[in-house]
């Protein structure tokens, strides 16, 4: 995800200090991966340099977290462009799973066992996300659902591959 666009978008709702930006980002989008303060400040100085934000005020004291940032007109245009541009769908053609499976078959290892272990690991994570989802609010639910649907797609691929394993083994060894 574009962290700089997300931070810029948050600034469009009103000027904020660096630490406030980080807190809001973590609460809304951070989930498992909260931002480092360093990420926020390096992003902010880049946005400053590009004229997408400006410093609106500085509190007394030390350190960059004292700066209060505001979005500029150029910044708003940038957010608008980002939101209006569709994301490139990721086709995952270079799947690690596929590579591992083919290599297992090429080296005479047990492809079915590899798929089974992966399948169990996927379901384990799906259980964890499902638990989080049932305990969480709507935001948690939507975030977990997004991950769950992707994991489900992976799992279906694992099933498909398992069903065609013998044929795949013949082909890769031919």
């Amino acid at each position, binding site marked *: 995800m574009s962290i700089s666009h997300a931070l810029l978008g948050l600034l469009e709702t009103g000027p904020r200090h660096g630490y406030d930006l980080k807190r809001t980002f973590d609460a809304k989008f951070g989930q498992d991966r909260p931002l480092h303060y360093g990420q926020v400040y390096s992003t902010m100085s880049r946005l400053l340099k590009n004229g997408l934000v400006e410093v609106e005020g500085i509190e007394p004291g030390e350190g960059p977290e004292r700066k209060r940032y505001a979005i500029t007109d150029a910044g708003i245009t940038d957010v608008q462009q980002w939101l209006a541009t569709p994301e490139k769908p990721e086709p995952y053609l270079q799947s690690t799973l596929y590579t591992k499976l083919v290599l297992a078959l090429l080296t005479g290892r047990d492809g079915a066992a590899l798929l089974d272990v992966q399948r169990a690991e996927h*379901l384990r994570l799906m259980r964890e996300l499902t638990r989080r989802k049932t305990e969480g609010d709507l935001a948690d639910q939507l975030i977990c659902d997004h991950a769950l649907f992707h994991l489900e797609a992976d799992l279906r691929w694992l099933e498909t591959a398992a*069903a065609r394993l013998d044929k795949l083994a013949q082909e890769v060894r031919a």
Partner: protein
Amino acid sequence: MMSTGTVPAADPTADTGVLLSANGLRKTYGTTPALDGADFAIRPGEIVAVMGPSGSGKSTLLHCLAGIVPPDEGQVRYAGRELSALSDAERSALRRSDFGFVFQFGQLVPELTCLENAALPLRLAGTRRKEAEAQAARWLERLEVDDVRHHRPGQVSGGQGQRVAVARALAGMPRVVFADEPTGALDSHNGERVMQLLTEAARETQAAVVLVTHESRVAAYSDREIVVRDGRARDMSAMAGAV
């Protein structure tokens, strides 16, 4: 809660906390080997998903576990008793008193109202009508379908009917719920809601659930999974994190 049938009472946790276990189960229909080896144990309160391709033997496994179909080989033990050692009458009494069932298309009795359907297992177990319907009504409420309690199954949506079927399975306070594709007829949102309500209720009453499903998002409500391939059932719980 149970022992309303003629089955002799037994300590359900006699087998080191195991409630239901399969041992070397095999079943052949004609020349089709429907089930070719199943060994596992289920504890009270555990929710176990049974997954696998179509025709792999999931329903056959479920029917053997529930004592509906006798296996050709192997044993099913429930609460310390071997199912094949019971008479037919004892087995059906056990099914009524201790097991609850949910099937893909609900299988509600079309002539009865949803409330009467949900109360049916309790009625069959000898509970008086008023008490049975009062209990069933609480389960309909819990499954969020109390507004259709006086409708007949033909007058409710598929999703509502499925919730009534789950209420019916739970109303008898079963020790084991057997569910064969309980969300098969539902969209994913409704299916998950039914799973959430079913697993919540099961955890609360410490009922074990055997859940046949081909949907991983449904299986994700379970504690562990058994995968059936070509009739062979394998307990996958030891697999995750094995690499």
